[in-house]
């Protein structure tokens, strides 16, 4: 069964024409999004600033109780 599935995908990818270009496009885009954009520009603020959920809760609660922005 696994062999059939493997051949199905292998032959599918081999026979692609336009699809090959699209896959290259997808790979480059995912690299830019997940490696460059996410890593360098979009840190998860609460994950990076605090060690556990209790600290994160305290921080957000502090924001909510400090009033108007």
């Amino acid at each position, binding site marked *: 069964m696994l062999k059939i599935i493997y051949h199905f995908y292998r032959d*599918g990818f081999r026979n692609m024409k336009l699809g090959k270009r*699209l*896959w290259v496009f997808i790979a480059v885009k995912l690299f830019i*999004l997940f490696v460059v954009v996410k890593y360098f*520009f979009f840190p998860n603020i*609460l994950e990076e600033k605090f060690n556990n959920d209790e600290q994160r809760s305290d921080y*957000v609660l502090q924001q*909510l109780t400090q009033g108007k*922005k």
Partner: protein
Amino acid sequence: MEHLDPSLVDWSRAQFALTALYHWIFVPLTLGLTFIVAIMESIYVKTGDEWWKNTTKFWMGLLAINFAIGLATGIIMEFEFGTNWSNYSWIVGDIFGAPLAIEGLMAFFMESTFFAIMFFGWEKVSKRAHLLSTWLVAVGSNLSALWILVANGWMQHPVGMHFNPDTARNEMTDFWAILFNPNAYSKFLHTISGGYVLAALFVIAISSWYLLKKRNIQFARRSIMVAASFGLIVSLFNVTTGDDSARQVAQHQPVKLAAMEGLYDGKPGAEIVAFGILNPNKKINDTQDPFLFKLAIPYGLSVLSYHKLDAYVPGLKQLVYGDKEKQIMSAQGKMDRGTKAVTALTNYKKAKASKDKLAQAAALKAFDADSAYLGYGYLKAPEEVIPPVATTFYAFHTMVIFGSWFILLFMIILYLTMTNELHTKRWALWAGVLSLPMGYAAQEAGWITAEVGRQPWAIQDMLPVGMATSNISSGSVMITFWMFAVLFTALLIAEVSIMTTQIKIGPKEAKHV
């Protein structure tokens, strides 16, 4: 209070809007084109006519291009939640976790199995198994959208949750209430049917172009027949879902409805503006006419909002300053109760720190009494509850006017196709081509109405956008805004370029995706 740069909120808003609007260029076409492709393949399986197989493959190729270019553009919004909207993502995390996890799993399994069969399985599986996969891709991609719209519907009308003052999170208390939130499913149906309309316009526009060029005539005629029939049915359905959506807005977001209609003074038997030019100098407190010009349908807004000719529809003045006779609480009244909720939350936090159980219980009771107005406690002035009226009004009317035109267009195109006259009517073919950008404009206008119209709220009545924002440098948000503007524009140019190349090649060459 930490100082928050006001431009940070605007840049964060602008960045999210840019990302969402670009993302929405790709999504609706996928939602609708999957169904059109499935219908065409069904005809192929039913008739055994190889010609329909080639037609299906051609449109499937364009679907693949749109899917590949649009893939993962939505993930950027998730990045933005963690960076720019950390308070918001923490507060809603418990609610959004389940629907978004289901969406992610569903998308992964659907795309890795049925999408693969749809594109690779033409000669590998039986006709019926292939057709089933195509239909499952159509249904699955739409169900994938369901979970996103459940999350969005919850933000517009939060239900099935309880705010936990210990964790500062909204915790899910009733999954089914969230899933069957009337705001969510009316939004879902209106959104996907809008996507179907766009896909029908897409097929008609490309086919009309072939007819104008006098090439691929049979292909174009048959494709137009399928698309116009599909388009007419789904555009009429879109009207009914829009009607339901408007009633949800009237009940849960009356300020948005008033802004959508430029309604400052409420009245029974309120008219609906079919076309209007707003008075740019109009202020909520003055007596100026809100319109420089308008064409209105008497009683239309009352019927749309409450299905009654004489139903009272409140205007911005009543919603901001209140109306005792109509039992409408003023925004100031809500702000007072919101301030009490914030104070109670502060007292709860202090009592918890000092381990004073009695004070903690009293503060919690006080908080629960006013927690429905929590968000109003962060507003500085009652007028802040008004969204940008002009943007909301023009976006809504653009959507409605274009949507009405599409119904007429589908009728005309279908009639001319059935009478075999379409290829001789160049004006109709040009109308078919030029309606495609209008379809995209209507899609974006719909989202602008929904999202600009709910300002200032990130979560309706609970969390204003200013409180949802992370306290980061506005400069970094500005840089990433322009970075995304360049990235998305490049993606759009790539899509248009690859798509137009494939369209110029035409259906005969598109045998393998």
